[in-house]
């Protein structure tokens, strides 16, 4: 497996506003069947106040990447390497106690299923207060409670003074996720990682939660990493996008550019498999053929080549023998050997660029 030699030079210049900088992150899990390379050389930056959308199929490594940022693989049998710099501090090498200070304070996380992510035996208020008090050891119970009630009312929970004493099972799904957002934001984190925060919710509630996150982001100036397989969510709230496939980033760039001119055939596939209102209704969606690759035995060459309809456009059998690095295409990057001329030809025939919805976000 080739390493990502290009990452340092290809990523955005390290300006002062870069909050999180991940370099060549690898998370491998030894199993009886072999080494599972869940994340294999991923690099990206997130600036303060900006939102990065991480998309990909199940098993593409998006959640594992973000759990690594939280240090959730420590103490497991996972083998990790690379650098995760948060404000210049390497989270991969900080002590366990320093990591605990950072968790929940500087980096907070929202999970997919708020019912299972909240402890069933404690009240919602108790759990939020716990998150506050662990990072404010001097705060007494009353302060923590007031802060919690304030936070609950800011995330739009009606009658927070009463609801603070409710148990998670007494909340609706949307309310639970609001409570999770309140818990994550109570310590004004610099970075908020949202792991499929709206997947378990129904559509109207999804929009509310996203809107809430955007509003609070403006207020707290936090950076957000949102993990999702819903491109609509990315289009709504993200500034940048990273598409993951087989444990690696296959395309990175600005959301507007990427949706308008995607560079990687996998991204084309993702966009084509999304229902569109601005096109003639098709009988069926176009799924990407084939299955996600095995993370133990990735295909040789480009991991996507067995499913790629355009591999024959690349001369020779380069796609199946040589692993593409992240090539720069203007401000975008993609792991693909196709030239811009090839892309133009494909776009002419198969693709219709996606207009950014609304245009004002």
């Amino acid at each position, binding site marked *: 497996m080739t390493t990502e030699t290009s990452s340092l030079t290809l990523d955005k210049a390290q300006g002062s506003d870069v909050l999180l900088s991940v370099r060549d992150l690898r998370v491998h899990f030894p199993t009886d069947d072999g080494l599972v390379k869940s994340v294999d050389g991923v690099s990206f930056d997130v600036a303060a106040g900006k939102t990065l959308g991480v998309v990909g199929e199940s098993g593409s490594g998006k959640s594992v990447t973000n759990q690594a940022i*939280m240090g*959730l693989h420590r103490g497991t049998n996972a083998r990790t390497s690379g650098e995760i710099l948060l404000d210049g501090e390497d989270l991969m090498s900080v002590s366990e106690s320093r990591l*605990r*200070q*950072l*968790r*929940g*304070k500087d980096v*907070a*996380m929202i*999970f997919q*299923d708020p019912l*299972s*992510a*909240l*402890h*069933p*035996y404690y*009240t919602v208020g108790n*759990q939020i207060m*716990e*998150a506050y008090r*662990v*990072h404010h050891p001097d705060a007494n119970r009353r302060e923590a409670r007031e802060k919690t009630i304030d936070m609950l009312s800011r995330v739009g929970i009606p009658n927070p003074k009463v609801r603070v004493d409710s*148990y998670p*099972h007494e909340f609706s799904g949307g309310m639970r996720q609001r409570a*999770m957002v309140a*818990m994550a934001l109570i310590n004004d984190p610099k970075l908020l990682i949202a792991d499929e925060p709206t997947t378990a919710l129904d559509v109207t509630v999804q929009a509310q939660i996203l809107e809430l996150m955007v509003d609070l982001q403006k207020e707290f100036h936090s950076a957000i990493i949102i993990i999702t397989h819903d491109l609509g969510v990315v289009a709504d709230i993200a500034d940048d996008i990273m598409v993951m496939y087989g444990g690696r980033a296959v395309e990175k760039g600005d959301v507007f550019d990427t949706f308008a001119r995607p560079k990687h055939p996998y991204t084309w596939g993702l966009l084509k498999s999304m229902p569109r209102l601005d096109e003639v209704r098709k009988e069926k969606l176009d799924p990407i053929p084939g299955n996600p690759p095995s993370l133990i035995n990735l295909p040789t060459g480009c991991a996507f080549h067995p499913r790629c309809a355009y591999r024959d456009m690349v001369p020779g059998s380069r796609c199946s023998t040589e692993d593409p690095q992240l090539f720069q295409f203007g401000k975008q990057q993609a792991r693909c050997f196709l030239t811009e001329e090839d892309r133009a030809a494909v776009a002419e025939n198969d693709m219709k660029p996606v207009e950014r919805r609304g245009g004002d976000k």
Partner: protein
Amino acid sequence: MFAYIIRRLFSGVIMLLLISLVTFILFFATPVNPAQLTCGKNCTPALIEQNAKALGYDKPMIVQWGDFLKGVVVGRDFPDDKALAKTHPELIAHCPAPCLGYSPLNSATVNDELKPRIPVSLSIAVVAFVLWMIFGVGFGIIAALRRGKFLDKFLVGLALIFYSFPSFFIGLFLLQFVALKWQLTGVPAYTPLTQNPAQWLSGLILPAVTLALVLMAGYTRLTRAFVLESLGQDYLRTATAKGLSRRAILFKHTLRAALTPIVTQAGLDLAILAGGTIITEQVFNFQGVGKLTVQAATTWDLPTTVGVVILLSTFVIVSNLIVDILYGVIDPRVKRA
């Protein structure tokens, strides 16, 4: 909550009624004439008939059951003969409520037989309970936290070894070596707690250890499984992501969820043991309820057998009720209404 307890108490009483009825049916299904046992070698057909009449064994089953229930509520006299009570009050055995019957074989009410024995069985059960909860649950937690490591395999294996030995073997081994040969403890004997607590404990320790070792294995495995299940829950990831310390995560978040199901099991086991442990009491020669049960069953002492069964059932039903109420307190999702 109050209404729930009342309703549960009510269903518990119904259950006890049914159990007593079933026991009575068994009583009559046996090929033994209970009146035969009232006089032993001196029996003549006339005497048997007289005793059967005096103790009510000649009445229809359902009437006898009614008499028994009446005795539980208001008490009974044996024999229930108003005329005899006036002329020879010393011949009447009064059995105050809750009366569990009269054993002609032992010439004593079942209550009087049980009274000195219940503290013995209860003491063994409680001390064993403390031991197996501390070690069984403790080992289970340690094994789960060291999953797959040496300590995990060692503790689970150790528990399994004790589990595989019959309790009479462990009991005899402890008695023979620990108490008699090496004299590490005194010879096990029962001293009432109120008389001398230290002696109470030292006399009980070996029978309690015997019981605890056998039960410990189940608890180690059960606890290990529940802790592992709890460790895989999403809410533990949330707790970690909040920045909580390992200790807070373990005690506040993991164990609270993991140990709740153990409460159910522990309550039932304690209730069953409080109703007497046959083998352990036999090995250490403790005059507990278990020994009485064996005696009664082997000598066809039917009234005593019925009484013991009712007592045991009451223990189980009451402990079930307590466990259910506790569950409602521990787990807020349990609806009490």
